[in-house]
């Protein structure tokens, strides 16, 4: 299958900050959550894909076209929603729509009107007069209907109220139905990650920690309540120990060791996704 996005050996340096190396391939039909601490390089990574920042090393292909080349046809295959847009303040939603619609041949007017209606966006007010939440809604209504196969969303729901977040999730599920589109969504909202993502792409201070299938990642971790004495045992696979509770990310190694040492546990459970993300983003500090 052709990948919508293909990235190899990507590296970027900004002063002391170093992003990468990153290798990533995005298949059609999938949603990838871009997860990381503040300042981990998520936004920079999305800008690199859009050719808005230049990498030191590596290649990026969108729909099989190099984004740094002469051929700019790839731009029709990707729609990007940045955290903040520049230069929109003086325009109304109506004007912005006409400007953007002209650039995208697959523009879906019906979807645009549906989103305006669901989010109750006033189209005759200047962008600068809208609240941050409404600005985000308008921005989304101007991005999804472009119907580009690859959608890059940078913190799309940060300022939105709870009902609007739910509406957006349903819109995204519908938008994905054709099965040949993909989304990369940078988000700190655990609900977005839980309900929408198939894969998690994790960055910590610019370092690429992995590209995980959601259930595989969850299945890798388990928490045990130990009933016998642990003393100072170093248990293989254990990433966190608090009293008699241990967390492992190499379950079979841990269980084999516990059994061989005759250490008993009376309860084992799975970790929540946010606990796993926290472990990934804090362990790496040491």
């Amino acid at each position, binding site marked *: 299958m052709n990948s919508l996005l293909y990235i190899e050996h990507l590296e970027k340096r900004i002063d002391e900050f170093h992003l990468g190396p990153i290798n990533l391939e995005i298949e059609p039909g999938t949603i990838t959550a871009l997860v990381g601490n503040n300042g981990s390089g998520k936004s920079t990574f999305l800008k690199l894909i859009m050719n808005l920042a230049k990498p030191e090393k590596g290649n990026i292909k969108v729909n099989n076209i190099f984004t740094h080349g002469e051929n700019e046809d790839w731009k029709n295959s990707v729609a990007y929603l940045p955290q903040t847009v520049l230069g929109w303040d003086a325009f109304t939603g109506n004007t912005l729509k006409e400007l953007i619609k002209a650039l995208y041949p697959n523009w879906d007017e019906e979807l645009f009107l549906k989103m305006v209606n669901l989010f109750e966006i006033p189209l005759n007010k200047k962008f600068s007069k809208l609240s941050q939440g409404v600005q985000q809604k308008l921005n989304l209504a101007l991005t999804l209907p472009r119907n580009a196969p690859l959608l890059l969303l940078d913190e799309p729901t940060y300022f939105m109220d709870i009902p609007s977040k739910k509406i957006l*999730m349903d819109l995204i*599920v519908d938008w994905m139905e054709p099965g040949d589109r993909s989304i990369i969504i940078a988000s700190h909202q655990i609900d977005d990650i*839980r309900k929408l993502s198939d894969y998690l792409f994790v960055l910590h201070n610019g370092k690429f920690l992995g590209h995980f*299938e959601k*259930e595989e990642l969850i299945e890798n971790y388990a928490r045990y309540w130990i009933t016998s004495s642990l003393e100072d045992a170093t248990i293989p696979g254990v990433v966190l120990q608090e009293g008699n509770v241990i967390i492992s990310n190499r379950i079979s190694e841990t269980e084999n060791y516990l059994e061989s040492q005759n250490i008993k546990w009376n309860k084992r459970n*799975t970790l929540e996704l946010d606990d796993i993300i926290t472990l990934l983003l804090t362990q790496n500090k040491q």
Partner: protein
Amino acid sequence: MELPIRISKDSREPIYHQIVNQFKALIAGGHLSAGAPLPSIRALSKDLEISIITTRRAYQDLELQGFIKTLQGKGTFVAEIAEDLKEEVKVTSVHNIIENAVDTALSYDYNLSQVKEIFLTILKDKEKGE
């Protein structure tokens, strides 16, 4: 459409397997009748908070076993199931639930005769209509 499917992430049974078994039980029990439309893979993945990789695997398994069918461009539907297959599913799902209950009891260090006692008490209560 919201389906009464609940997955347990703590269970040792793989998630796709839990989905397959619960669909089979819903179909065999008549809660989902032949021809009924099923949620898309993406929509079910959102509701169950799992990836489409897992949901797709469950749907493929169900299709292979003849419980559902996919019509190109139209969606996924419950298939016609033979009566003897329905019966078989009912027997297996009841068997599995009781087996799980026994396993839980054993994990609490009950012995088999104690489990039997509990089971008989429940049956007696049911006979009395409680």
